[in-house]
């Protein structure tokens, strides 16, 4: 360990070494997950690369290249852009409130003319993790544990969360809040405050349910609690998803033979519910294989986080990983009828460029942390990479 570390320190800047240092197990898992997604898209399009499967692979290729490119960027640079990126995201979120496009009943999109449109909440996922990591990087253990300093990160989390929730995009808001809180906990918040906060949240939940939600959001939760009550209405998605999963059995119905997805009973079959498509055609074994791939991604990333010498690196890598992990758990629970239907995709498996880009940029940061794990974030000047 020391030898590698020394070499790395003395010969920093050598691009080829950095590239070779990218986690291979991690990368392989990512490639396999994205390929599985493309495989499913090929199947549900009726054995066709169009319209999704080819696109998905191309996007992943581009995003993977971007991840590699970002991985070689020095952590100092990451730390330097942390606050500005957070501030920019926040401004964009406010801009969305004012001039954003309303699509499918929610104001999430910012139109950039010829560049297309994007959701600022996606940048915020990275911006928040970076800013929190940057904040705690400069904070002593005692202060991180239990002090008035807690108010600052809480404010940093609350501002984007509330803005996103107001769009309304409850799924992303929950994701932002949970990711931010995870970073706060990992930074060393006192258990007493954690438990007290959790208790308060549990008490506030009913009030939030009654007064803090839109009707359709409340309806989704009620539907989740009793999906059979209205099988052709709002419970339809849940029920059809469960049928797809359950009818898959141990081995699945076979590739290309999933009647639930092929015949359109399954809603959003190539995006949010792609895991159900997979479950139907490849059964329990296929599902467990994919879940294991996700475990590989999460555990290699967490290992990367714990190897980092810099607190900034540790926290940001763990933060990004927890976002990813939350995606997996929330989508999985939703598809299996264990959580209400919220618009959270299964990362890399689901079709959709925006989330894939966010996730892969985040993983660019994780790999940057891995490559620069022995580096200090602050101190002497250095080059960009």
């Amino acid at each position: 360990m020391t030898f590698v570390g020394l070499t790395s320190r003395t010969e920093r800047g050598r691009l080829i070494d950095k590239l070779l240092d990218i986690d291979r197990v991690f990368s392989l898992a990512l490639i396999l997950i994205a390929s599985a997604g493309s495989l499913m898209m090929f199947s549900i399009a009726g054995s066709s690369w169009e319209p999704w499967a080819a696109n998905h692979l191309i996007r992943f290729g581009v995003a993977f290249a971007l991840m590699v490119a970002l991985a070689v960027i020095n952590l100092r640079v990451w730390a330097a852009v942390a606050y500005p990126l957070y501030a920019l995201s926040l401004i964009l979120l406010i801009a969305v409130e004012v001039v954003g496009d309303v699509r499918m009943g929610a104001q999430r999109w910012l139109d950039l003319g010829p560049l297309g449109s994007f959701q600022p909440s996606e940048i915020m996922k990275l911006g928040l993790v970076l800013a929190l990591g940057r904040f705690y990087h400069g904070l002593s253990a005692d202060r991180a544990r239990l002090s008035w300093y807690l108010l600052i990160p809480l404010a940093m989390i609350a501002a984007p969360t509330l803005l996103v929730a107001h769009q309304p995009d409850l799924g992303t808001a929950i994701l932002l809040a949970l990711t931010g809180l995870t970073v706060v906990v990992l930074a060393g918040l006192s258990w007493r405050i954690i438990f007290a906060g959790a208790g308060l949240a549990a008490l506030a939940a009913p009030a939030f349910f009654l007064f803090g939600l839109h009707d359709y959001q409340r309806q989704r939760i009620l539907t989740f609690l009793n999906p059979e009550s209205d099988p052709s209405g709002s419970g339809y998605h849940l029920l059809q998803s469960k049928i797809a999963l359950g009818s898959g059995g141990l081995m699945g119905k076979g590739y290309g033979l999933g009647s639930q997805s092929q015949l359109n009973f399954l809603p959003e079959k190539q995006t949010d519910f792609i895991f159900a498509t997979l479950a139907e055609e490849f059964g329990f074994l296929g599902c467990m294989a994919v879940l294991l791939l996700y475990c590989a991604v999460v555990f290699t990333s967490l290992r990367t986080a714990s190897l980092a010498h810099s607190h900034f690196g540790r926290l940001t890598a763990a933060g990004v990983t927890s976002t990813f992990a939350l995606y997996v758990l929330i989508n999985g629970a939703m598809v299996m009828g264990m959580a209400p239907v919220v618009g959270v995709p299964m990362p890399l498996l689901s079709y959709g460029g925006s989330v894939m880009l966010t996730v892969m940029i985040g993983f660019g940061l994780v790999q940057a942390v891995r490559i620069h794990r022995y580096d200090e974030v602050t101190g002497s000047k250095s080059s960009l990479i």
Partner: protein
Amino acid sequence: MTQPSIILSDVNARQSVFHRRTFLLGGGFALGVAALGARLASLQLVENDRYAKLSTSNQFNFRLVPPPRGVITDRNGAILATNRPNFRLLYARQKDQDPEAMISTLAAYLPMDEARRQRILRDIGNAPRSTPVAIMEDITWEQFSAVNIRATELPGVTADMGEVRVYPHGGAFAHVIGYVAKVNKEDITETGPNSEPMMLHPGFRIGRQGLEKSLDLKLRGRPGAQKVEVDARGRQVRLAPGGDIPALAGKEVQLSLDMDLQVRGLESFGEESGAAVLMDCRSGDVLTLISAPSFDANRFVRGLSGTEYRALAEYDHKPLFNKALTATYPPGSTFKALVAIAALEFGVDPKMTISCPGFWNFGNRRWRCDGVHGRTNMHDAISSSCDTYFYTISLKLGPDRIAAVARRFGLGETYDIGIPGQRKGLIPDTEYKKRTFKRDPVWHPGETPSMGIGQGYTLVNALQQCVMTARIANGRKALSPRLIRSIGGVPTPEGSAAPDLGFNPDHLALVREAMASVTTRGTAARTGQIGLGDIRMAGKTGTAQGYNYNGGRGIVGTNGPWHLRDHAWFVGFAPHDTPRYAVAVLVEHGGFGAQAAAPRARDLMRLALLQDPELRGRIERPPASAATVAQGPAVPEAPA
């Protein structure tokens, strides 16, 4: 960027807290994945059967296959109603589709005019969602395949091969068999056979008239089912092999009608309006049941346009009306045979003569007779249709005796031959007068003479007239007509399975003899001869005045506007000595019975006799001796 002053121990503290909590985070994720795995196991392994069933019921639907409707044949097996393949286009409306755009695309392959386009749009609009609508029927094979190839350009449109009812003889059987038509909303009931889902199938037709209506349930058969794979919108994706339930065809119905006789009988009416019924007077089988003019039942199957229907409904010859069963007319002089039988039963001596000076004075009125017949006995009175004789006799008998005999011969009755909408007509008597005319409930003697010559209140239909003639000819049995020979191979009871008529055979023989002379020297001497040697037709003419039988003040014969002219009747049977067939012909507003009705009866009877294998030999063999009128039972024992 400020460098915080963090001492080493603090750095280590931060790091170890992070490590511990990251470990917990990893553990939490592992726990979450384990929970997902457990849930997957419960759904996919434990509850797999339940969800597999739900998935299958999502994936497959049973599509109804309408059964072929039962075929209807004549007594020789000639087809009167059957089904032929019909290529049609069905359209199932879907949420995000514009039927007008579909029709515009379709019009490129199948030219259609604006009226057609509007009708299709209306049909689509009226149909319940998810029920396919037939938008084009009876397209050619070329059109059918053209649309099939371009199915992708026409979302919601499927080309389908069904069956359509066809009546090969057009109008000849329209009044008997009726027709089938599209199902209306009113046809669908909550329960019973008309609640079945088959009713909603675009290819299904319901019996709307005649036998198609009365035998509808037997002709329908049982629908089959075809297993099809459907998508979430219920659209058919492909046929699923296996699991099909075959449709059960409707029962075949054989009628007693004779196709050839019926068709040629109808032709003989030409432009005239009327009815003709010919019966086997041994078995009661109805060989023809004609109502003229007729209409093409096939047009009703596809749906008649408003103008077409109005043209049929408003024509004064009333083609839609079954004149053999639902129209009633005064029987006119054909009724005299029954009055004669009533008189014989009452004890009137047939040799007794009544003097006819060409009129008859009764009350303060002079009643007219058609001719000056001089001294007339019963035989001559029937033969020459002397009104004076029957005025006198009927006055003696009174209405009740005449009515009783008329009823026993089948007048004033409807028959269970499977055709709905028969009218009873009216055989009046004192009871009727009392019941109907509250202000003048008494039967006046002056009303009886009218009845005696088949006028007045008396109303009959052509089938009743034929039954009457058949019973006179048969002489023993109170024959009932039979129209349906068998349903699904099960024979229906013969018309001769009836109680005895109960009249003195000698009396009937006497009347038959008199009727035989009608065509030799009586009223139909020129028009009632069938020209088959010694096989002759006996009969009775009738000229019924629908309007005013009052000393010639009404419009008589063939003068005046069509709708005011007399109705012409002829009833008869042949051979006159051993009766085989009975016939009744009505020509509405046709004028004199002998001129308008007798020739048609003669032609029809001649055809029937020539077709009869039993009589064939007798016709071809030269007559051994002069024909004699049979005495005693007119009908030999029916061959077993």
